[in-house]
């Protein structure tokens, strides 16, 4: 057995083998702002897509136009934001003038550099994150392909979505939209029409992916929407651990991010999906920031299969995301571990859906929300036991931590049980960082800030320990940086 190790982000972004997918090709491409059938056709044509994919996009587009007209954006989440003007967004790699971009780190906002410093991001990566103009234009996609050869030998496919469309059309045709149909919801439908690129992974039967696969997303030009699409298929008896990292440069205006992730596990397969989401949260005053409307869903299609979502959500002005699992195969397992942080004016409405269909299916939900400043944090989760799901088991735990007295924590569980053999447990707690805890740590010489950090990461440990080691370290640091100014 090969011991799993991970493709570290540092290696990926500084290594010479790093590829930028189709991005460099579109450097000279210009498409006007706004959404129309022509834009959808243009995206598809530029990517040289087959007819069936264009048709799929167009179906999504027309459905979206109808949705926009008839009902608009979903309004049930506890989030407030100004109306999004969908015609004021670039849907295709926006023209980026290198004259406007900073020429070197010396031109970059010192506050942003200080943040990178604290996160321990290597210098070369900092330049990229800061959007320093070098010869490449960075866009929505970055797939680490460093280990491609090693993976190829095992029959593992790991590439950008566009490459997969070209090289593995049968797999894409079979699975695209099979978990999140193009008509699923407002944002997923929008994504289906205009998705730019993303990642595709396929693990063949019986293969345990020896390394962790990672995709690192960052946002680019001002006014650009980001619409990536990820599809991961673990065939019978396969295993993969997949990491997703996100960051965005500081922008004064808000940016829309509407991604779709689809996971499929067949018999005895397992996918472990970990996310650290650190999109720009907006300024302390609530200016700018990313609107993160993401649809993530997995289906345990086979028996004894497992899908596990772990997420640490520290970024975005608005987070609207509910990584879910459809437990179709008998004895399948779904897990959701989440830490969501809302500081300053951030709003997070996040949770999960566990849909039990197969017999003896099991789901675990551990959702932790940290609210600070004027942040609003909502856990919204659904557990649904279908009539066919004999002996289904769910355990849900929702914990909220309040830092300060101007923030809010809300818990909205939806439980629907249609089989009397089901066993469900729901625990919820709300707490504050107590003065006793702070005094205890400080009386040992630990500074106030460090004491807060220790208490908060300790409180989040149940979730953070589910992350791969390097990610866990980064998650701890992110919580610390994200809470700066909220304590004391």
């Amino acid at each position, binding site marked *: 057995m090969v011991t799993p190790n991970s493709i570290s982000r540092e290696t990926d972004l500084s290594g010479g083998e790093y590829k930028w997918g189709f991005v460099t090709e579109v450097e000279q491409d210009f498409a006007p702002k706004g959404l129309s059938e022509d834009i959808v056709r243009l995206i598809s044509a530029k990517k040289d897509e087959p007819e069936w994919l264009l048709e799929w996009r167009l179906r999504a587009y027309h459905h979206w136009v109808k949705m926009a007209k008839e009902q608009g954006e979903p309004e049930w989440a506890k989030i407030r934001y100004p109306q999004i003007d969908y015609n004021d967004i670039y849907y295709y790699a926006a023209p980026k003038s290198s004259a406007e971009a900073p020429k070197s780190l010396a031109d970059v906002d010192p506050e942003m550099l200080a943040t990178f410093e604290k996160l321990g991001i290597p210098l070369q990566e900092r330049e990229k994150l800061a959007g320093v103009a070098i010869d490449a234009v960075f866009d929505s996609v970055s797939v680490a392909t460093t280990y491609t050869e090693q993976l190829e030998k095992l029959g593992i496919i790991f590439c950008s979505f566009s490459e997969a469309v070209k090289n593995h059309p049968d797999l894409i045709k079979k699975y695209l939209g099979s978990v999140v149909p193009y008509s699923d919801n407002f944002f997923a439908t929008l994504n289906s029409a205009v998705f730019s690129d993303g990642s595709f992974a396929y693990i063949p039967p019986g293969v345990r992916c020896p390394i962790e696969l990672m995709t690192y997303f960052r946002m680019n030009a001002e006014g650009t929407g980001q619409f990536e699409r990820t599809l991961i298929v673990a065939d019978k008896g396969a295993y993969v651990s997949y990491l997703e990292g996100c960051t965005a440069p500081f922008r004064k205006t808000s940016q829309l991010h509407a991604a779709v992730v689809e996971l499929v596990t067949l018999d005895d397969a397992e996918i472990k999906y970990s996310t650290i989401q650190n999109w720009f949260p907006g300024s302390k005053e609530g200016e700018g920031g990313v609107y993160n409307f993401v649809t993530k869903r997995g289906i345990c299609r086979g028996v004894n299969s497992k899908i596990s979502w772990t997420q640490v959500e520290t970024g975005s002005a608005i987070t609207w995301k509910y990584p879910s699992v459809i437990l179709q195969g008998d004895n399948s397992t779904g897990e959701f571990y989440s830490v969501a942080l809302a500081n300053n004016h951030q709003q997070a409405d996040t949770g999960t859906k566990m849909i039990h269909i197969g017999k003896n299916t099991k789901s675990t939900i551990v959702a932790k929300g940290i609210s600070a400043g004027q942040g609003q944090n909502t856990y919204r989760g659904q557990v649904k036991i279908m009539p066919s799901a004999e002996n289904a088991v769910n355990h849900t735990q929702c914990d909220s931590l309040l830092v300060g007295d101007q923030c809010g924590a809300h818990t909205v569980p939806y439980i629907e049980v249609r089989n009397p053999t089901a066993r469900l447990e729901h625990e919820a707690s709300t707490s504050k960082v*107590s*003065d*006793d*805890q702070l*005094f*205890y*740590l*400080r*009386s*040992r*010489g*630990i*500074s*106030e800030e*460090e*004491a807060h950090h*220790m*208490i908060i*990461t*300790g*409180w*989040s*440990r*149940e979730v953070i320990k589910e992350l791969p080691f390097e990610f866990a370290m980064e998650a701890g640091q992110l919580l610390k940086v994200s809470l700066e100014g909220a304590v004391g």
Partner: protein
Amino acid sequence: MLQVTDLHASVVDADEEILKGLSLSIGAGEVHAIMGPNGSGKSTFANVLLGRPDYVVNSGVVTFDDEDILELFPDQRALRGMFLAFQYPAEIPGVRPWQFLKAALDARREYAGEKPLSVRDFSKLFDDKVEAVGIDPDLVKRSLNEGFSGGEKKRNEMLQLEMLEPRLAILDETDSGLDVDALRIVAEGVNSLRSPDRSFLIVTHYQRLLNYIKPDVVHILVDGRIVETGGPELAITVENSGYEQYITAAMAD
């Protein structure tokens, strides 16, 4: 080392004072005991010395090594060498004792201009102390104080005392709720740390602990003031005749 002069303190937002002009002086290497009835202000005094934010100092002066410490934060006092063994240590979920003590010791060493101990050296020291204090090694892999019994919490306080090696250790009723074995461990810990440049202030209701730790000076605290100071024999007197006489005298004032 510690000089307290006419200290007045109350609970934040409360009118009534708890400490009403407390004065005492502890020299380097000395072991002092403060005894007193319930509600006399013993625990308040111990906590005020470390700067617990629940209390406000109304007047008076406290110096540690001739430095006025009343304006310092609790962590700044700790870095200067003060330590409080808590009567009711806080439970902190998800924070392991190992991690917590490493951070505390690193902070202290950094303040002293020393490099942090390597993980290896720290672990060895930690394991040795865990054994010496008699804590179940499985316990320190869990969350700090969470699910610890009363006795385990007190032992954990002693572990911290031994690891951090403060110059002034204040023990706030560390003996309460302890069985004889645990009491002996606390006493052994204190006795082994006694040195010419380390002082102790032992806050206790009963004389029991003083059978194991021999104080140089005993103070009787009643109604927020020291009403009598003497040698170890004073503890015996109190044990035999109770606090009644002091309370009556204080009321008559």
